[in-house]
């Protein structure tokens, strides 16, 4: 049995990616179990999906804590304390990451101890579809690496995406992208070793009075710790030569990420700017440019 975890952020198509893979494996004749784990519908929140593929009936339920393979659709999740996409990855496991960098660079940056496969899914999607749709490439690349047959991947992409897109809405282009990505990766023979379980013994829970144990927050305004700047695909960049200090961008930013510097020019908290780009459209002087986010925080 092969167990995969797919990590991304809400809105990136994690569920669809897992379903493309799951459906492809199902069509090829495997037993499959897949499910996404998410709470409230929200763009940007870390989301994971789980896929088991097996020749035998699958005796598993719930989240996969020790996957053979992990797909990381948003590389900023590698630093996200909440997401921990690589946790539990088995020895000799495979990590597929959506990034413009090389496997060596990623391994060096994040200390990844696994076989790393990189693919710039964002770029491929922008090139072929004109927008960043990650579900199709992520699901297709995973299918390719796992060794699913191309005809099954094609049919899976058509089935899954037909439920979301209609004809003329890009279904054909998405299927083309799926095949393109599928052919760009090499199938790997993934043979992992069951990793020794993390030594975390069961404890006796000790009593703490309500002053500590009630679900209240005494800290104030600490949400910037979430660093939602990780959500961006594009970042807004100001041109001070053109800026008239009209403050429209300040007024329009939903997250209040724009403030004024000492000279009265807008300055941005890039740690938390989500890249919605309302400011770009709001600037009457057209003084804000949208730039592809290459830097990872």
């Amino acid at each position, binding site marked *: 049995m092969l167990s995969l975890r797919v990590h991304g952020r809400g809105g990136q198509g994690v569920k669809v990616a897992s379903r493309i893979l799951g459906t492809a494996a199902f069509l090829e004749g495997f037993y499959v179990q897949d499910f996404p784990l998410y*709470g409230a519908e929200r763009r940007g929140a870390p989301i994971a999906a789980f896929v088991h593929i097996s020749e035998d009936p699958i005796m598993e339920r719930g989240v996969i804590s020790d996957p053979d393979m992990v797909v990381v659709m948003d590389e900023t999740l590698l630093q996200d304390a909440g997401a921990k996409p690589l946790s539990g990855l088995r020895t000799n496991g495979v990590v597929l990451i959506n990034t413009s960098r090389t496997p060596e660079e990623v391994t060096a940056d994040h200390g990844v101890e696994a076989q790393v496969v990189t693919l710039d899914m964002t770029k491929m999607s922008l090139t072929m579809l004109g927008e960043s749709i990650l579900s199709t490439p992520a699901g297709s690349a995973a299918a390719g690496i796992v060794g699913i047959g191309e005809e099954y991947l094609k049919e899976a992409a058509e089935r899954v995406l037909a439920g979301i897109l209609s004809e003329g809405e890009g279904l054909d282009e998405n299927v083309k992208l799926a095949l393109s990505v599928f052919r760009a990766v090499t199938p790997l023979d993934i043979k992992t070793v069951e990793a020794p379980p993390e030594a975390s013994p069961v404890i006796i*829970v*000790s009593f*703490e009075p309500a002053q500590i*144990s*009630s*679900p209240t927050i005494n800290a104030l305004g600490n949400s910037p710790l979430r660093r939602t700047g990780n959500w961006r695909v594009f970042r807004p960049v100001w041109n001070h030569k053109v800026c008239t200090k009209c403050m429209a961008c300040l007024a329009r930013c939903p997250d209040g990420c724009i403030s004024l510097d000492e000279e009265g020019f807008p300055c941005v908290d890039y740690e938390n700017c989500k890249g919605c780009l309302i400011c770009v459209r709001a600037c009457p002087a057209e003084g804000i440019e949208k730039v592809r986010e290459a830097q990872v925080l």
Partner: protein
Amino acid sequence: MKRDMLTGNAAAAWGVRLAEVDYVPAYPITPQTEIIETLAKWISDGMMDARFVSMDSEHSMITAAGAASATGARTFTATSSQGLLYGFEMIYTVAGWRVPLVMVNVSRGLSSPLTLEPDHNDIFAIRDSGFLQIHCETCQEVLDSIILAYRLAEDEQVLLPVMVNMDGFYLSFTREPVEIPDPEEVREFLPPYRPKHAFFMASRPMAQGVAVLGGSAYSYFKYQMHLASLKALEVYGEICAEFEKKFHRGYGPVEGYMLEDAEYALVMAGSFSTLGKKAVKRARDRGIRAGLLKLRLLRPFPEAYIRRALEGKRAVSVLDQNISVGKGGILYSEVASCLFNSKKKPVLLSFIGGLGGKNISPQEFEFIFEKMIEAFEGGPSGPHLLYTEKEWDDISILKRTAEKEGDA
């Protein structure tokens, strides 16, 4: 201190007044309405320094009460059956907020079919919520339990809300002699509420009742509620000892009646325990070494007390005034689990009676003792649904009148 004839509802109102409650959001429902009417009158006349608000539903009422408690005010409200269940989600919410709200539930059978008379399905429906539960046998207990409840709820080691339960009609509308303690003495026993963990004030903002994502985080909060509830058993013991010293009335988590040397024991809760005690006396007159264990504190469940009281008995009958449809008596299951691992566990039987205020007659109590003796000698029977021949005849007449019977 004065002594007067008070209904259970009036006694409850006195408990609230002596506790010097700040806020009463209210909504009427039989059989608790007199509690809030009495409080409204006292507040209107200036005899009680508090604010009273008529709310638009029990769901809103419990929300307002919990929110006021979360703001730092000592708050009270009361409800019953349908009203309790209408606000059900807020019962869990307020307990999770860890605020010391005290409520009275006047127990009443649940619709459908609709009734006004008492049983314990309503109060037991909230047993999992985190609210502590105190059940009263007499009107005196009602008054005293409210004062105890605030002291218990507001204890820094506890900080969980408390529900004081009294049976509708048989306590709520029944008058008995009640001692009304001196306000100054109560003030000494119950200091003002000065929260350190939950309040709203401009100089110290806080976010309360926030969302939690992640199973282990949620589990932490729920486990701590459970541990606080268990801690409350210790605290209850301490404050009842203090209460007894001051007011000369003792209230353990359970009460044994002729239980020490008993061979056959009845387990009950609420006002019908009085009938149970009378039945025990009659059984003794017939030569049966009978006894009764009354449960007062239902949450936290006084596990060790119950086990100690019932171990070694020949047979025990749990008389449930509630029914879990498809399983049987709720208290029966709870008592059974507490005795299961005991090496000296008695034979345990289950009886259901008193639903919707149905009387439990001397014949039915005799039946219970008969079955216990049979069970000790030959093995358990039941669960038994208590109903007499006369009652069956009565309902047959009603059915025929409603044209529900086939050709007789």
